[in-house]
């Protein structure tokens, strides 16, 4: 008989070991899945995890890794702060869209005027768009006690419809022959978030993601606000005695997460994506939740988790191409990662004991 026994304090070792164990378990289970599909498991794992980094065309793919990981890390860094405090912002996808819409709206309005002020202003508007969208669930929670989980999630669908409306209506490219989608900001120098060093994939969004990692690390581990956030999440009653005002915390955490997501949307729409289209959002806001937990809600962990997640996307496409793996198998593979992480997380708070129950 196997029983789970709660540990007196969470295991430090398992806190850091679970992500690694989860990755290894995913590789094994994924390998079995690929073998069942008739592919060589070791080769499939190598194509997904090794080839994008060190394979024939790695020079290109390493840059793409940063392009893909940038928004994931930036959004996850913001979300993790709220998650630490027990404030669940599930709507980063919507905040990401709003950041993109706010900033692209300005650029498309003043097109084709060139100005050095445009890009910085777009950055501010991007953060503001995400911030305002996240403040809706924050204020509703503070004023009426609504669930921020539901409200923030529902607002994703509202944002998606607004995005579709904008790309078919007000922001549609007037020279696009009636087809949906805005002008491409890549063709508008003042608004284009171009690569900073050609061929590296590094654009302002990637830089901002790194800055966000450092800033959230300082906030969470070197600043009294971070201490309050952690206490609020781990011991809400104690936090209240220590003078933490829950309402303020809700507004701060959701607002910050929203602003980060909005920034990610802004850098994406002005750079790699270039256009406001109805299919602009591809799920970064949701994947970032996985990244945040895979990274143990710790800034450095999130940095690594974001890169790992990006790797599975790029390697996944590679596996489709080279090995003919169906994309559904890749998605199962990515899902397994979170599944194993949560499963092994049990070991952080419990230990397994073999033998009679209650002995």
């Amino acid at each position: 008989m196997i029983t789970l026994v709660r540990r007196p304090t969470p295991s430090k070792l398992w806190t850091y070991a679970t992500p690694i164990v989860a990755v290894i378990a995913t590789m094994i289970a994924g390998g079995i899945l690929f073998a069942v599909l008739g592919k060589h498991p070791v080769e499939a794992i190598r194509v997904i995890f090794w080839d994008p980094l060190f394979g024939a065309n790695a020079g290109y793919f390493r840059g793409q890794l940063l392009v893909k990981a940038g928004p994931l890390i930036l959004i996850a860094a913001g979300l993790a702060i709220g998650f630490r405090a027990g404030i669940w912002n599930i709507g980063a996808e919507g905040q990401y869209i709003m950041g993109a819409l706010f900033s692209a709206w300005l650029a498309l309005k003043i097109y084709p005027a060139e100005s050095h002020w445009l890009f910085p202003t777009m950055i501010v508007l991007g953060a503001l768009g995400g911030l305002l969208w996240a403040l809706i669930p924050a204020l509703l929670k503070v004023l009426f006690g609504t669930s921020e989980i539901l409200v923030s999630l529902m607002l994703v669908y509202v944002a998606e419809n607004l995005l579709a409306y904008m790309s078919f209506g007000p922001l549609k490219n007037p020279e696009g022959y009636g087809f949906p989608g805005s002008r491409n900001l890549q063709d508008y120098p003042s608004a284009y978030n171009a690569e900073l060093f050609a061929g590296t994939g590094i654009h302002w969004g990637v830089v901002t993601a790194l800055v966000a990692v450092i800033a959230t690390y300082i906030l969470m581990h070197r600043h009294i606000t971070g201490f309050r956030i952690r206490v609020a999440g781990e011991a809400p009653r104690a936090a209240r005695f220590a003078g933490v005002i829950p309402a303020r915390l809700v507004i701060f955490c959701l607002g910050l997460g929203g602003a980060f997501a909005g920034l990610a949307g802004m850098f994406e729409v002005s750079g790699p994506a270039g256009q406001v289209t109805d299919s602009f959002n591809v799920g970064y806001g949701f994947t970032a939740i996985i990244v945040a937990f895979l990274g143990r809600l710790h800034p450095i962990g999130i940095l690594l988790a974001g890169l790992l997640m990006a790797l599975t996307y790029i390697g996944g496409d590679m596996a489709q191409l080279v090995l003919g793996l169906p994309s559904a198998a890749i998605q199962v593979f990515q899902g397994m990662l979170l599944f194993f992480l949560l499963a092994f997380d049990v070991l952080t708070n419990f230990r397994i004991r073999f033998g009679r129950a209650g002995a």
Partner: protein
Amino acid sequence: MNRRSFLKTTAATAVVAGAGSLPAFAADEPLKIGFIYVGPVGDMGWSYQHDQGRKAIEEAYGDKVQTSFIENVPEGPDAERALTQLALEGNKLIFATSFGFMDAVMNVAKKFPDVKFEHATGYKRADNVATYDAKFFQGRAIQGTIGGRMTKTNKIGYIASFPIPEVYQGINAAFLAAKKVNPDIEMKVVWAYTWFDPAKEADAAAALIADGVDVLLQHTDSTAPQAKAQEAGNVITFGQASDMSSFAPMPRVSSTIDNWAPYYVKRAGAMMDGSWASEATWGGIDTGMVEIGEISDAVPAEVKAEALQLKDDIGSGKVHPFTGPLNKQDGSAFLADGEMATDEQLHSMTFYVEGITAEAPK
């Protein structure tokens, strides 16, 4: 990423790949052809039909070609990466099979001047980028004829996807053909704002059926509207993109099939004999790109004969679904008496024709 530095970083890989930019295809080396699909190949609609075209290439040329694909590619930066991946893997002919891949195709084509790209339903071309599309509206005219003859409520419903020229062409062509055989016809349009969303499509179908529609046309790709019509019992439908024959003979009485196979086989052949050139193809019934699925027994014999006659006449060019005199919905002139719409006129069609009472989205 500017072009020069990109070439620098990839120059080494091109040497490794051994392909370089050699114009000739060695006899024993297969031509590599790549595809990206916006959906899964199992969607039984849009992407499925493109994948059928890919298989047709393999069937036609056997060992002389080698095809691969990436499915479920989101439009935007992911498409750009997937296309680059295909080019780096040595594919010399690449089919990008969704409108939303357009700017990504143009960006990647600039970086790989010796790779040929084919973009479906777009309007941007370059020396190494061709575009292709099908005249789906020709199929709509046949659906309109069958619908106009068979309706008892004189109401035809249309589940529209997005307000773009292709969809307006479809609505207008179906309406004009139906009106020709039944002057009392009324067109009801619901805009679903999706290409594929079974739940939304089912809602749209239910709303139209509740409104008295007994002929249901869809410009969306799922079979959800077919299922709704089957429930209602007395509503006829038409398969979209693929045949959807599992709903025959009722409610599905016919279909418009996107058949990319002849075009794909032709273009792959042109690559091999060196005659590939960038061009804009807009094929219809005549080229086999638009195929009319089996008309079921639920359709009276004389209506079936009329529909097949129309198909032949459109195929031979005797009949054009858009022939004047024809006004726009607001009463302004579109085509003079006997004038046939040009491709350019159709490509910029973002209005209803006169007689449709529905309101166009702003």
